[in-house]
């Protein structure tokens, strides 16, 4: 983490130095820099979700660059201040507080874990700083955690796990076993899957909890096999999911049950390889292959490819991009950087940054958006980026979300 900060400081110094050397108007440059729009970006650069976090930063930098290349806001440029929260809620709160008090950031975007985003949200709520969360959580939109400063760009477990349940239960069967990472997000995924499953007549045979960051799941697998469910739902994420998928494959679970996961990530699939993930299906907010049918996805991919050597953005990367885009676009609409004006501009924003039309629901600031159901493939892959088949896209609708009243908001 320390190294990241110094790297950044060094990079800033280099950029500053280059600017000073190359232009005679360096005094103006220095003034303009002092007046940048600062966006704090806490995210777990180290730890089991680091691959996803790195991609968030890359795409966020792209959004910042696009804003600055377009002239910024009245000549004011935007700047990203990335901090490593180490996937630890306490660390995340400390870093966020530092960003707000010491670095004087105007807004906070970021996070990657249900628990850290709640702690970041708590700090932002108290300091009245706008926070656009780009990680999945159900709790963050509920009245007790939510504040008018809270926005949730990401999908939430109700939307993703629900969509996966609605897709898989009619096709594969009603007996369900969960293998769940024992933390807030894992529990939320189970709850959401069961909520959607209930309407379809599904029953839960077992919900087996494992500690977050367990590296070997083999000890849970004989029992799962003996329970013989129709569907095994892997409610874990990042490296946990990679290991679990790999070991389920090794133990031959796929021959007797369908394995699904509420959130099937591009990065996890790359890390795990085609064999481990073969046939596993799941929900996601974005897959670069959408570019065949959605023009904004094509534009986003192309810009990302150009900036990062032909690589394509991941799902969580896309959230980093959209999270920053929404805030910066709202500043332009509000014609002000004042937090409350930006908040109301964001509430009325209708946007399409990368995956089709979206908007933030008024009562809880949840981004209403599509859920993409993808299946991992192991054959006929065009290149290393070609990892998923898009099975279906569940359309943008508030119908599948919990109602505002359910979340405790007054209408």
């Amino acid at each position, binding site marked *: 983490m320390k190294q990241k900060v110094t790297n950044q400081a060094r990079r800033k110094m280099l950029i500053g130095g280059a600017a000073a050397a190359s232009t005679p108007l360096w005094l103006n440059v220095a003034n303009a820099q002092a007046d940048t729009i600062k966006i704090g970006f806490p995210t777990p650069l180290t730890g089991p979700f680091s691959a996803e976090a790195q991609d968030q930063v890359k795409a966020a930098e792209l959004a910042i660059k696009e804003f600055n290349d377009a002239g910024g806001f009245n000549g004011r440029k935007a700047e990203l201040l990335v901090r490593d929260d180490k996937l630890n809620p306490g660390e995340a709160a400390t870093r966020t507080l530092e960003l707000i008090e010491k670095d004087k950031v105007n807004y906070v975007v970021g996070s990657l874990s249900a628990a850290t985003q709640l702690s970041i949200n708590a700090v932002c709520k108290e300091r009245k700083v706008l926070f656009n969360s780009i990680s999945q959580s159900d709790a963050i939109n509920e009245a007790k955690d939510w504040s008018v400063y809270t926005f949730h760009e990401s999908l939430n477990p109700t939307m993703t796990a629900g969509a996966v349940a609605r897709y898989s239960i009619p096709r594969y069967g009603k007996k369900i076993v969960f293998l769940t990472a024992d933390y807030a997000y894992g529990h939320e995924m189970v709850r959401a899957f069961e909520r959607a499953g209930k309407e379809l007549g599904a029953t839960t045979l077992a919900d087996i909890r494992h500690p977050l960051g*367990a*590296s070997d799941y083999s*000890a849970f697998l004989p029992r799962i096999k003996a329970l013989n469910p129709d569907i095994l739902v892997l409610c874990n994420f990042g*490296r946990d999911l990679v*290991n679990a998928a*790999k070991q389920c494959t*090794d*133990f031959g679970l796929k021959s007797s049950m369908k394995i699904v996961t509420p959130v099937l990530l591009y990065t996890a699939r790359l890390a795990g390889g085609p064999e481990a993930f073969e046939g596993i299906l799941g929900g996601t907010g974005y897959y670069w292959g959408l570019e065949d049918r959605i023009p904004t996805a094509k534009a986003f991919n192309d810009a990302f490819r150009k900036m990062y050597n032909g690589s394509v953005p991941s799902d969580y990367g896309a959230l980093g991009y959209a999270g920053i885009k929404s805030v910066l676009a709202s500043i332009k609409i509000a014609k002000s950087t004042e937090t409350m004006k930006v908040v109301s501009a964001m509430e009325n924003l209708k946007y399409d940054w990368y995956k089709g039309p979206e908007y933030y629901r008024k009562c809880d600031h949840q981004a209403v958006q599509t859920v993409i159901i993808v299946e991992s493939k192991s054959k006929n892959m065009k290149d290393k980026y070609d990892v998923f088949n898009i099975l279906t896209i569940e359309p943008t609708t508030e119908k599948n979300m919990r109602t505002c009243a359910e979340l405790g908001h007054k209408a």
Partner: protein
Amino acid sequence: MTGLTFELLCMQLLTGIALGSIYALLALGLCLIFGMLNVVNFAHGAFFMVGAFLGVYFLGVTGNFWFSLVLTPLLTGCLGLLTERFLVRPLYGRGLDYPLLLTFGLSYVLIEVMRVTFGIEGLPSITPDGLGGSINVGIGYFPKYRLFLIGATALIILGVWFLIQKTRYGLIIKAGAADQEIVKVLGVDIAKVWLLVFGLGCAIAGLSGILASPTRSVNPEMGVPILAESFVVTVVGGMGSPVGAVVAGLLVGVVYSMTSLFFPDLAELSIFVLMAVVLLIRPQGLFGKAGAMG
């Protein structure tokens, strides 16, 4: 719990033994180094991680698992030799804490080196040809690779046992652990013995890394949790006792596995409970001599 069958219990036991093999192997390396040099090697998990990375890398380059199974421990062993010669050796005679802190720092350096070299995402691990899939073992299907893992571990442990019990080198190692003064007086260059034992310990750590890699993802932080678990194993077995390391390694694997069956939430905790219970009854561990830490 409903549906508890004999097959399920056996399967769970087998799973536990496969899990325990890696613990046993890692703890064996740890305790060789401790028993002989009185060094608590906190970089052991990092050597395990380095072994996994190198193994997967060589496997990717050469396509030959057996080749990388030989090359990897040689390289981590050499890394161990360098570590002992240039980092650990200057600290002998300063008690347990100096080498402990040094190796702790070294583990962070190794993690960072792997992050810079291979990226933070790590490498997708590869199951060697012919060992993928599962096979019917009479009580149900079990992954072929994990059976191989149990066999390979048993062979390595036998090899180490043979080295210590049946060879002249083993005699020197045992004598050195018992009384280094006398061994020195007898004209043995004890410094060289320490060097080789440290290298051997690290080679075993690297070997367990590559052996474990097809069962889990290979990433820079993979050595951190398993180090804690191998220390539990070493303590349960008795610090410095190779037999204890092996027995306790398997025991921890089986306890973890059985707890997972009945109380999955407590699986992680179970091995620490086991450690606490053992320490209450036998403070020196199952096979340890009293006062080994002194």
